[in-house]
């Protein structure tokens, strides 16, 4: 196979193409893996915001005592604080522009680590909220005297409650990992394959 001859033919061949018009610059939004990840995160942000609003109504819906309500407000405020911090980070990721004129390796590594960092941030937020809610449940159960907590403690042993706590943590972990992998992980996986192929000696 004569590659020099092929090169000549390649350079002599000018593909027939339509003019690039002004409209083409406004046609659609960007869809690199980063853009797709950002789009999904945007939708999820609204979902998390709705969950946060719904969480505010829990004391009323379940009928917390005044004492429990005060503790709940404190925990709720901590959740809001963490969420505000993470939402700010995600917002910066959402707004941060990228430079495709870097060399391909730098560009790929930027995409990969930026996506990975935000995916880990996303997972840690889920864990934090899960743990705060679990901690609140423990306090509500063991320190606040109420009809519900007395009933639960009378029926269940401490070992059973501890096992339940461990199982809940494991379930939160598995669901978070599975959700992040299936919803966001495919982009990361594809980019990783390309990063590996450029680094291959």
């Amino acid at each position: 196979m004569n590659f020099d001859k092929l090169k000549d033919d390649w350079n002599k061949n000018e593909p027939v193409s339509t003019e690039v018009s002004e409209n083409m610059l406004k046609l659609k939004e960007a869809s690199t893996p980063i853009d797709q990840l950002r789009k999904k995160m945007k939708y999820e942000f609204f979902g998390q915001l709705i969950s946060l609003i719904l969480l505010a109504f829990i004391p009323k819906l379940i009928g917390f005592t005044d004492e429990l309500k005060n503790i709940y407000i404190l925990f709720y405020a901590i959740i809001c604080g963490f969420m505000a911090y993470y939402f700010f980070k995600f917002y910066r990721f959402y707004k941060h522009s990228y430079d495709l004129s870097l060399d391909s390796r730098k560009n790929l590594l930027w995409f990969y680590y930026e996506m990975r960092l935000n995916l880990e941030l996303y997972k840690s937020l889920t864990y934090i909220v899960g743990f705060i809610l679990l901690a609140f449940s423990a306090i509500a159960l063991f320190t606040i005297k109420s009809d519900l907590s007395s009933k639960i403690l009378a029926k269940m042993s401490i070992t059973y409650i501890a096992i339940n706590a461990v199982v809940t943590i494991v379930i939160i972990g598995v669901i978070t990992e599975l959700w992040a992998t299936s919803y966001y992980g495919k982009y990361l996986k594809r980019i990783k394959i390309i990063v590996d192929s450029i680094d291959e000696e």
Partner: protein
Amino acid sequence: MRYTQEEFLSQINEHKGIIHKITKMYMDNALDQEDLFQEIVMQLWKAYPSFKGTSKFSTWMYRVALNTAIVFFKKDNRKVDKPPLNEQIEIADTSDSQEKEEKLAYLYKAMQELNQIEKAVIFLFLENQSHREIAQNLGITEVNARVKLNRTKEKLQQIIKKNGYEF
């Protein structure tokens, strides 16, 4: 330095052949090629304010266009009838230019079996870039660029041979 939309469009139209070659190489059907074409044009337009003019427009364009193509993934849910790789390409006329067309058509088909980086390497080679320029564009060492190019050429040869064509 401010650039106008008209200047950008005029530069792009002058070099749009580069984008077309990249889209044909990275995507195997017309719809995906069109999507990639639009994506590249849009990314070039977005990145245009950062073009300082210290290098040639085409040099800058190669990078942005290739980097876009490398990370561009076609839509998963789109069903397209793809011709098999070893399908005969019908060329009625046997003149020299038709033979060249046929050769390039087989080349584009064979390129579909290369990975994203191999496509970039062979594209830059076909666009007359030296090992050094290939290395600079991809961000790898010159030695690695040489090795990658040789491996890609071999792989391409094997694919073309496997599909019953030789040139």
